[in-house]
């Protein structure tokens, strides 16, 4: 059953609103595959369905409001038919996720450390508190975050967006998932922190062989990291190609529009900077 190398396979994913009056399709005909260690970029404007796809893969859509059909397979295992309990175990441990809004992603009244540790101990119940703390600290250090043991005692509001984003990556790395979904990981950040985050994502791929589904509306980010790119428009994938192919010879008119819309100087500048690392 295991297709070696293929981490994620999404076939004919369709999501519609459960509106009896007007059945409305939010996502249509989504086909995606991710191999081990590869990065697939998902591009599109706001509202094109990128985040929805991410939620659909994680089975986080409310069945009372959304009707989901199609197949989502992780290492050949069908996720859409899994019971909630099983899916919960997969989330975090086999599919990691880095969210758009790092400032609000953590519960404000608990320290980073306690939230990190609770995640570790949920997935590995036999881990003692001390062990969990050690792992957390080393993961934070791995992310090049300053003073990890002190960071553990900080509350989310005391850290910047960039640091919180890297904490999220650290949590993901600790659990060693096969797939990480990065939903607009750089949107809320300034340029310096953007580079840091991208660097860590790159390391994730090279050092751990993690497959990454990179969702962004920022073409610069996509061009730096992705191997393949899929372009979404209004709930459909209108073009999917290898990154250089897409950027240099876009096949679909919409892709061309997106490419035209970006500020060229910023793109070439940051690309240059990434190459220099």
């Amino acid at each position: 059953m295991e297709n070696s190398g293929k981490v994620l396979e999404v076939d004919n994913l369709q999501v519609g609103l459960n509106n009896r009056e007007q059945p409305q399709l939010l996502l249509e005909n989504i086909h995606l595959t991710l191999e081990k260690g590869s990065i697939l970029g998902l591009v599109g404007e706001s509202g094109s369905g990128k985040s929805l796809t991410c939620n659909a893969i994680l089975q986080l859509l409310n069945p009372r409001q959304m009707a989901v059909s199609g197949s989502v397979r992780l290492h050949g295992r069908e996720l859409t038919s899994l019971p909630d309990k099983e899916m919960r175990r997969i989330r975090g441990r086999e599919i990691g996720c880095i969210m758009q809004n790092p400032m609000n992603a953590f519960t404000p009244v608990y320290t980073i450390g306690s939230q990190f540790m609770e995640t570790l101990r949920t997935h590995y119940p036999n881990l003692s508190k001390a062990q969990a703390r050690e792992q957390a600290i080393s993961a934070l250090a791995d992310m090049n975050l300053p003073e990890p043991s002190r960071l553990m005692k900080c509350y989310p509001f005391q850290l910047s967006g960039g640091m919180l984003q890297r904490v999220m990556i650290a949590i993901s790395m600790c659990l060693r998932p096969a797939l990480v979904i990065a939903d607009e990981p750089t949107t809320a950040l300034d340029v310096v922190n953007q580079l840091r985050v991208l660097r860590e994502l790159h390391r994730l791929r090279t050092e751990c062989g993690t497959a990454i589904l990179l969702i962004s509306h920022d073409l610069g980010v996509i061009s730096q990291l992705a191997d393949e790119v899929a372009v979404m428009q209004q709930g459909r994938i209108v073009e999917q190609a290898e990154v250089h192919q897409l950027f240099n010879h876009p096949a679909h008119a919409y892709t061309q529009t997106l490419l035209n819309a970006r500020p060229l100087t910023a793109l070439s500048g940051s690309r240059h900077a990434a190459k220099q690392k």
Partner: protein
Amino acid sequence: MIGYIGKRMLSVIPIIFVATLVMFALIHISPVDPAEAYLTAAHIYPTEEVLEQKRHEFGLDQPLLTQYLHMVGRMATLDFGTSYLTNQPVWTEVAARLPATVELALWSMLFAAVVSIPLGIAAAVYRNSWIDMLSRCISYLGASMPQFWLGYLLIFFFSVKLDWLPVEGRGTWQNLVLPVITLSLVLIAVYTRLLRTSVLEQMQQTYVQYARVRGLRERMIMLKHVLRMSMMPLISGMGINLGKLLTGTIIVEQVFSWPGFGRYFVDAIFNRDIPVIQCYVFFAACLFILCNLLVDLVQLYMDPRISSKGRAEH
């Protein structure tokens, strides 16, 4: 942080000061003459000379400022004067009755918490289900039903008809049941709604989504993260609920002949026993102020964002 606490505690002082001013003003506006009331209660005929003498004794002929300072000084030592009715020091009478009221209040708060927390959470999680409708009904009923009527209804069913519980008075746990239920209904009404709204709001937040994404168990998310965050508006609303609790004790003590401070207060109103009235209102004001202070401090503890300067680190 200590600075914040210190500042908060200091700000209480001017408010208490204003409360004493109001107390003083009210006593002097009141048409009741303390000397006359005292004499009447002591069954001494209030002739002019005796009245003058008593007024002098009470210091009523001294300048207002002196009287005020004396009053504040006495209050600081819990001397609220003597009851016009019994000529006993007010504070001894009050102290004898206070435990009964405190007992009633504490049990009611506990009961209200035990009922409203699960109900509120359930109403939020199972939104628009029968349990949500039930909680809504209870809220409206609790807010609209006259407490004294509810008390008598309960007495009618459980004491008169079924004879399960005693009608009135204080003694065993059976005496507590009906008064506590009556008093707590209005609290349950408020808390359930508040909690429901709060939980619903929290469930929309990003951190809940991220918690799911991380793979945390749903129960842990609700009980550890959402509940903790939902409690905060409840705590800041405590002040209003103290008010309801206070009002409730007055009425419930009357219905169930519960020998507490509230009942004493009502009796004093009928007897025009001004010192007792004064003591009650001042006591209520202080309780209120202290409660608000406590609420602020608890909020400080529960929400680390409030106290610290919160400079983001880069």
